């Protein structure tokens, strides 16, 4: 049966067909849909973990216990999981384990574009890379077989254009139902207890593995040679293969499905059959460096960029610049006589509860250490209220460092609920332990919003939507040792301001839990009610336009005294959060109660 699947859906299907029993991960674009697709499939257990390290340990545990497993994350998640990734490579496993890791070249939704193939080499773990959804599915099974044959975890590296591109997949046979019998746990302390004495014996095993895998890789059918015109040979991988194939339809190709370790004999044979060798790879020169280490001459990053995502266009333009293609190979394009176009970056949604916090921190002139989530968008104008964003969970530690160093301004950390559970907890524990007057604002919108509303330990539901005990923030924060804990409604600007003012006067650590569900959640949507501007009252001061809400527009009406445009509200976008109504100094924006009263009269 053929289906149109994204790379992520295909990885999930592949895991199911290949008999994965336990899968675990943390949501992160572009990897998120893998576990979401897997969750309802029969015979497989999948869960969201608080972070990627926990997820990797869960997958390792399952594989130690003799069941096939998969850990799922985005590239920066592998940083969090790196410690576990390395020990798993040292110990090996009792059953196959694959780490599906989605890199984000071009940083569509990430803070960096690191190349996970470097981790493969760093930890001596084989790395597979699909070029289509079909391969994304098939390579999960291949990875698990490899994992068992060579006693190693295997990295399945995908990228945004694999994860989120759809192509046609021929499905494999459905998995066989388990016999229901749990295997006995095989104890082997010399293999699995990594004290120095044992680790010294495991390290050579790990080093010897790679030449054996490389030998095997010479024969693997997913490392394939496609001979064409022998004047140019192209070594490529992943999605870059599709781009290169389109730009150089006649060239000879060596398409690597395994990008670590490389197949030495295959590459040497290929190189000997072509006049010139180039490497088309996205991000780092990982393949190029390995080929050069083999003593084979090739060009790669001298032609193609190291930074950003590739595309057929970029590959073609670089090839033209390098003299590999004629200028005439460039497609003709339509040309427009364009005015300057206003950019359209992503923004905080209309009604986003984070807005109430940022308006207030800006009003109080707080320096804000930020974190990873929708709220990172608070750095954009007109809010301009968030001042750092590095990685998951960094805000609280940073704010503590700011506090210990000392600055003239007051300052705070903001972190989302899911991010707090991810890596914020140890940092807040540090504040309680080492005592700074840091204000930690937890933006609790009851979901992992940015990646599309995944559950987490605070929502009360599992990945499968089953009810589970929810971890409440206020008692947790108190238990960590924070003495001053406040819960506020970010839609209530006066309350937020009062609490933040109080916190800035404290000498001891404080935490403010800003509690209001994401405005896109169904429970919030049912309360949507568009507000409206009383144009007779509006004095076109534009204070409301500085709250940065996409629903607030310039009206065609002008305030005669200044000639400036009054405000209008887009009834399709407005949710009725009343933040704009609260900042309006002349009460020109009607509150919900006023709108409801009007509608009541009409009814």
């Amino acid at each position, binding site marked *: 049966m053929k289906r149109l699947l994204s790379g992520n859906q295909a990885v999930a299907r592949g895991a199911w067909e290949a008999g994965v029993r336990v899968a675990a991960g943390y949501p992160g674009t572009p990897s998120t849909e893998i576990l979401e697709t897997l969750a309802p499939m029969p015979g497989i257990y999948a869960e969201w973990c608080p972070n990627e390290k926990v997820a990797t340990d869960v997958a390792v545990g399952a594989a130690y216990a003799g069941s096939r497993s998969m850990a799922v994350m985005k590239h920066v998640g592998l940083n969090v999981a790196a410690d576990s990734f390395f020990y798993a490579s040292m110990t090996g496993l009792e059953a196959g384990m694959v780490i599906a890791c989605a890199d984000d070249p071009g940083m569509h939704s990430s803070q960096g574009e690191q190349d996970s193939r470097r981790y493969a080499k760093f930890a001596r773990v084989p790395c597979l890379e699909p070029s289509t959804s079909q391969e994304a599915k098939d390579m999960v099974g291949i990875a698990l077989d490899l994992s068992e044959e060579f006693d190693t975890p295997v990295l399945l590296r995908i990228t945004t254009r694999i994860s989120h591109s759809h*192509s046609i997949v021929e499905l494999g046979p459905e998995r066989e139902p388990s016999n229901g019998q749990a295997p006995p746990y095989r104890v082997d302390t010399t293999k699995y207890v990594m004290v120095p004495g044992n680790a010294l014996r495991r390290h050579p095993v790990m080093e010897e593995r790679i030449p054996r895998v490389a030998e095997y890789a010479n024969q693997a059918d997913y490392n394939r040679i496609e001979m064409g015109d022998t004047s140019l040979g192209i070594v490529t991988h992943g999605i870059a293969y599709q781009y290169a194939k389109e730009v150089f339809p006649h060239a000879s190709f060596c398409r690597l499905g395994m990008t670590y370790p490389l197949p030495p004999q295959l590459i040497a044979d290929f190189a000997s059959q072509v006049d010139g060798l180039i490497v088309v790879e996205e991000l780092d020169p990982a393949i190029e460096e390995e080929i050069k280490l083999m003593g084979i001459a090739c060009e790669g990053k001298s032609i193609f960029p190291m930074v950003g995502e590739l595309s057929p266009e970029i590959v073609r333009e670089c090839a033209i610049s390098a003299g590999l293609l004629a200028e005439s190979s460039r*497609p003709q*394009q339509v040309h*427009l006589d364009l005015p300057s176009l*206003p950019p359209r970056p*992503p923004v905080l949604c209309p009604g986003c509860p984070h807005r109430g916090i940022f308006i207030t921190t800006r009003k109080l002139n707080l320096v804000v250490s930020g974190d990873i989530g929708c709220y990172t968008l608070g750095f954009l104008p007109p809010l301009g209220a968030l001042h750092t964003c590095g990685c998951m969970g960094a805000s609280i530690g940073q704010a503590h460092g700011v506090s210990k160093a000392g600055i003239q301004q007051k300052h705070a950390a903001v972190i989302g609920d899911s991010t707090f559970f991810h890596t914020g907890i140890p940092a807040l524990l540090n504040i309680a332990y080492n005592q700074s007057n840091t204000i930690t604002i937890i933006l609790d919108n009851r979901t992992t919003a940015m990646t599309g509303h995944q559950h987490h330990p605070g929502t009360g539901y599992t990945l499968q939507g089953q009810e589970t005990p929810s971890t409440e923030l206020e008692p947790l924060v108190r238990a960590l040792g924070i003495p001053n804990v406040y819960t506020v409604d970010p839609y209530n600007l006066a309350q937020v301001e009062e609490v933040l003012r109080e916190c800035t006067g404290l000498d001891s650590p404080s935490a403010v839990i800003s509690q209001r569900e994401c405005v896109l959640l169904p429970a919030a949507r049912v309360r949507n009610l568009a507000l409206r501007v009383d144009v007779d009252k509006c004095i076109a001061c534009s204070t409301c336009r500085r709250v940065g809400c996409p629903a607030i527009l310039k009206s065609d009406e002008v305030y005669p005294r200044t000639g400036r445009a009054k405000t209008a509200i887009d009834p399709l976008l407005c949710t009725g959060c009343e933040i704009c109504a609260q900042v309006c100094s002349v009460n020109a924006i009607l509150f919900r109660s006023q709108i409801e009263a009007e509608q009541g009269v009409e009814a």
Partner: protein
Amino acid sequence: MNQRRETAQAATNFVVVGVGGQGILLAADVLALVGMRIGLDVKKAEVHGMAQRGGSVISHVRWGEHVMSPLISAGEVDHLLAFERLEALRYAEMLRPGGTLLINDYRIAPISVSSGNDIYPSDADEEKAYASATVHRYCIQAMEMARELGQVRVNNVVMLGTLSAFLDVPEDVWLEVISSRVPERYGEINRKAFALGRTHTLGLL
């Protein structure tokens, strides 16, 4: 070199653009599934996550005997479906000469415009921009048509109906795919939206 041209010509290339939240991903899904249903190889590329929060969104869809790259190069787009006027301007140069540009006559001000720091291109700016462009341009009142049906959200399916007028695919195939991709209770209104866009555009050709 010639073969590359042939490959490019053998494929039919679509780009759907607009603002996050306008139903671009659904439209691109339908388009890809329709290609698959008529027996072609298809690929579709899009981006999720942060970009979807009210940002500029683009989705690529390709039909062909054998499609390689999911991304389409500038100059190789046959049909550009724009759900918003500024986004039409932003991506129109991806069209090949003689390509079709279908624009939903609808404006969404970016935050820099609504907060007063930027200016949205005027009607005159747009006319000037397109004056020298060798494309077939159609401005569709998709939002109005959707409003008449009582559900503005289906303006994306009105636009699909519009696009269908340029493609040799039976109407039934479109309707079946649309029905399979929307919740059953919205099936009727989406089928009506498609028919409205299609009939209107066939009348223009």
